[in-house]
């Protein structure tokens, strides 16, 4: 187990394994997203209350879930990098952060668009919405901090520390934001109270969530490999690999 982790930590090994796994995840993502989208957009029944605006759920919820998972993945990668000094973990962190921020943005955007027909407003200061917004700021902070250092190594480690501090804070933030909202007034709208969905509504949702996860994994593997090519460009195996690799001819 130990040995395996350390092997995986070596860029060469990680590259080999990741490149092998990658096509499978891309395929899975493509299939799942295609099926889920068609099902969700065209075949799932309309909600009896919200009508067709309900179909936003099929992008909103996967994005929201993934946004939170990404932060946990980011913090895990940061921890691995700081404690075991495994460079691949940092390369993964570097590519996870922007994608997590993008997913947070998607959740916020789709949610506020959804809010107009259902709540009649783009934005309310609800606990969940607010903590999502704060999460976006945390992502931006991690990205900005990494970019602000001239030396890549320092930027990497600083961003890792911030990701860890942030992940300690996320539960505290969630808890406090909920406390804060119930303090002033009962929440006007809730996200959780809704009638149980029939399977033909939640099955496509499940498919979409899985599709988003596969997409995330495929993208992370691919971009981490590109990052390896960049950072390890002086190594012989990378150069030999470049000679053999197809594409890039221009």
């Amino acid at each position, binding site marked *: 187990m130990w040995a395996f982790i350390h092997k995986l930590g070596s860029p060469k090994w990680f590259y080999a394994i990741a490149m092998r796994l990658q096509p499978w995840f891309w395929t899975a993502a493509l299939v799942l997203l295609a099926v889920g989208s068609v099902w969700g957009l065209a075949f799932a029944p309309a909600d009896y209350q919200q009508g067709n605006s309900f179909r936003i759920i099929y992008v909103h919820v996967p994005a929201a879930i993934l946004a939170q998972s990404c932060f946990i993945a980011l913090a895990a990668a940061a921890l691995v990098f700081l404690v075991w000094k495994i460079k691949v973990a940092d390369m993964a962190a570097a590519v996870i952060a922007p994608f997590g921020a993008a997913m947070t943005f998607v959740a916020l955007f789709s949610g506020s668009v959804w809010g107009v027909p259902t709540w009649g407003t783009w934005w309310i200061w609800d606990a969940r919405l607010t903590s999502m917004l704060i999460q976006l700021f945390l992502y931006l902070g991690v990205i900005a901090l990494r970019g*602000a250092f001239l030396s890549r190594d320092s930027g990497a480690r600083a961003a890792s520390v911030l990701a860890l501090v942030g992940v300690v804070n996320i539960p505290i933030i969630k808890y406090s934001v909920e406390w*804060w909202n119930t303090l002033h007034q009962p929440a006007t709208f809730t996200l959780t109270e809704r009638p149980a969905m029939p399977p033909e509504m939640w099955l496509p949702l499940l498919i979409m969530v899985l599709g988003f996860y596969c997409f995330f994994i495929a993208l992370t593997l691919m971009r981490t490999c590109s990052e390896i090519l960049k950072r390890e460009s002086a190594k012989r195996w990378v150069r030999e690999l470049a000679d053999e690799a197809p594409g890039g001819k221009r």
Partner: protein
Amino acid sequence: MRVVEPRAGLGVAIAATVKRDLTLMLRRRSEVINPLVFFALVITLFPLGISPAPALLAEIAPGLLWVAALLATQLSLDALFRGDHDDGSLEQLLLAPQPLAALVLAKVLVHWLLTGLPLALMAPLLGLMLSLPSGGYGVLMLSLALGSASLSLIGAIGAALTVGLARGGVLLSLLVLPLYIPVLIFGAGAVQVITLGGNAAPHLAILGALLAVALMLAPWAIAAALRISING
């Protein structure tokens, strides 16, 4: 070796200074988005600190937006001359044969382009989050665009005065905030008037006039302040 005669070249010098400052800011892209994020963050703090009730927020929205934009501009000003001072290029700027006021104006222009203008463009989004009544958005942007130019100019005077000091940050706020008050009153006033159904034109006209005055006087004041700071 013969004496070199002063040559014109003011245009070249200004263009190069604008280009240099743009490059410097854009090279660290985070420098450009930071004031925007700060703006958004401060706006987020208010509902958290005050109350999430939309009616209350709508009432205080113009004031909150303007105060937050003002603080964001002002904080980013601290760096306007500090970097140049620390590495000695401010000394060289002062020893350039070109009129200092013009060079300094170029620096302020870049600051406004990358801070004030984006803030103005972003404000409607935050207005939405504070439930600002529709109808106020155009005036919000216009007043911020006009006003933030004055803020950059006035703030640069403060930045120039404090550049020699180790910790300018808070001191700068102190010097500059009182001068910001007229801009704040007419800027927030314009937005408030329009959301209450009035006519914002007079307020905007005054903002324009303030900007004209600032444009005429501030560059000289900034140049003088820099000379004083470097002298110590």
